[in-house]
């Protein structure tokens, strides 16, 4: 479904990711692991069109999308739920969700339907639907960010560290929700620090180290890889 071929991205003279290859099949959950600054978010930004690739190709459903505008990429079915949430803090929860369906703005009915679905997934959002997004707690904001991404009815959803800074209880819920979303038919590419939980729901993973992929394999392979265990899962 999504294929990165020899992708490189640079910020000015600094090359953040270099010649990486990633393959995501339809219906999969794929996880990107790696320490801070390894280049996971940069990869996501490149896929979403927020950064222009310096080299290489991004293929989505067989078509090259490298260099397309972010708007067009969302339209074609890739939505990112970014690090730091990037909500509209002064808009209400429901307004945020509606903005999430921006690319389907013509279809009012479908929007209503999607909102309902998001509220089913995250009942707390329904309770807070009139509150400004900025007033939510960190966990609630994270849910809203995911909910907003879902509003675009993505075929592929990019989740950048959804569990960061969340309470253990919430993290658990979060991963359940991700799995649920996946089961409903959305392919998921996930970047995580919490390798244990992530690999628990993913079918395969890639490990980044300073801009390149150093290890890749199925979840089982990675979980049993000693170096991976040591660096990303802890003793």
């Amino acid at each position: 479904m999504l294929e990165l071929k020899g992708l490189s991205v640079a910020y000015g003279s600094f090359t953040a990711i270099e010649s990486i290859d990633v393959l995501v099949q339809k219906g999969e959950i794929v996880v990107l692991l790696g320490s801070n600054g390894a280049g996971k978010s940069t990869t996501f930004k490149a896929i979403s069109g927020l950064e222009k690739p310096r080299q290489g190709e991004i293929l989505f459903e067989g078509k090259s999308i490298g260099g397309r505008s972010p708007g067009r990429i969302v339209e074609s079915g890739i939505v990112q739920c970014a690090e730091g949430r990037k909500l509209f803090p002064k808009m209400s929860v429901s307004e945020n969700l509606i903005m999430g369906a921006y690319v389907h703005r013509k279809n009012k009915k479908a929007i209503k339907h999607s909102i309902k679905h998001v509220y089913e997934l995250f009942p707390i959002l329904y309770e807070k639907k009139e509150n400004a997004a900025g007033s939510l707690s960190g966990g609630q904001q994270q849910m809203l960010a995911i909910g907003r991404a879902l509003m675009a009815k993505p075929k592929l959803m990019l989740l950048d560290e959804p569990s960061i800074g969340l309470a253990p209880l919430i993290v658990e819920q979060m991963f359940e929700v991700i799995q649920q979303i996946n089961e409903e038919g959305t392919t998921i590419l996930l970047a995580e620090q919490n390798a244990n939980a992530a690999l628990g729901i993913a079918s395969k993973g890639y490990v980044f180290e300073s801009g390149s992929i150093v290890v890749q394999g199925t979840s089982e392979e990675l979980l049993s890889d000693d170096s991976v265990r040591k660096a990303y899962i802890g003793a």
Partner: protein
Amino acid sequence: MDILSQQLFNGLTIGSVYSLVALGLTLVYGILHIPNFAHGAMYMLGAYVTLTMMLLWGIHYWLAMAVSVLVVGLLSVLMERLVFHPLRNAPPIHDKIAAIGILLFLEALAQLIWGADYRSMGTPYGEVINLFGLTVTMQRVLINVGAVVVMLLLYLFLKKTMVGSTIIAMAQNREGAHLVGINTNKVAMLTFLISGGLAAIAASLAAPINLVFPGMGHLVILKAFVIIILGGMGSIPGAILGGYILGFSESLGATYLSNDYKDIIAFLLLVIILSFRPKGLFAREGF
């Protein structure tokens, strides 16, 4: 003639002009965080284009104003593309100085095209009417009504339409807007278009009661900045309220305090308000 009500009306008129100018400014500030000093030049050009349309092709005032809104709006978009877009990641001081460069350029350009002299704009609404003992001209009524209508339309546009929401969304989080698929370039251009259009409307409405000349944007823009600070940067209701506060404080200040020092009153008011509310009356950004 009841001096108080007459001056209240006068204050309302000035306030309407100020508010319209300040709205365009606050919009650009609120959404793109650009303190656009060149907005004064847009105001000036708005008046000149309307005037030229009326003189050159003899077209009707309203039509001329529509042309002006379009022309100045597009110019404003051009300015965004050529100057502010390349500067989007630079600190705000840069925008300020670049805007001053544009201001100098546009003023010189106006002087080249139209000459440095004072011009006067005719209006089909010159007649004097008496409203409840007030002496007003139709044009002045028009300014007030026009301003309110424009403000209302702007409000409805921002709050009730999807395009409006995109603008607000971008004001709150640029990257977030990107993520949901909003073309932020388009929104930036749209914002400048509206802002330029507002300046053109303000100038076309106000020009018939004053004169048209290359430097006409100077003081208006200064006051507009005072207003948006007063109201809270990026706040639409703040800009409207601030505009009227300034308008009234000028007209009433000139009447009951001192004519010579009436500008000081307005600026002092700001200084005092900011001393107590360092972030303006509506202390929130992004509407």
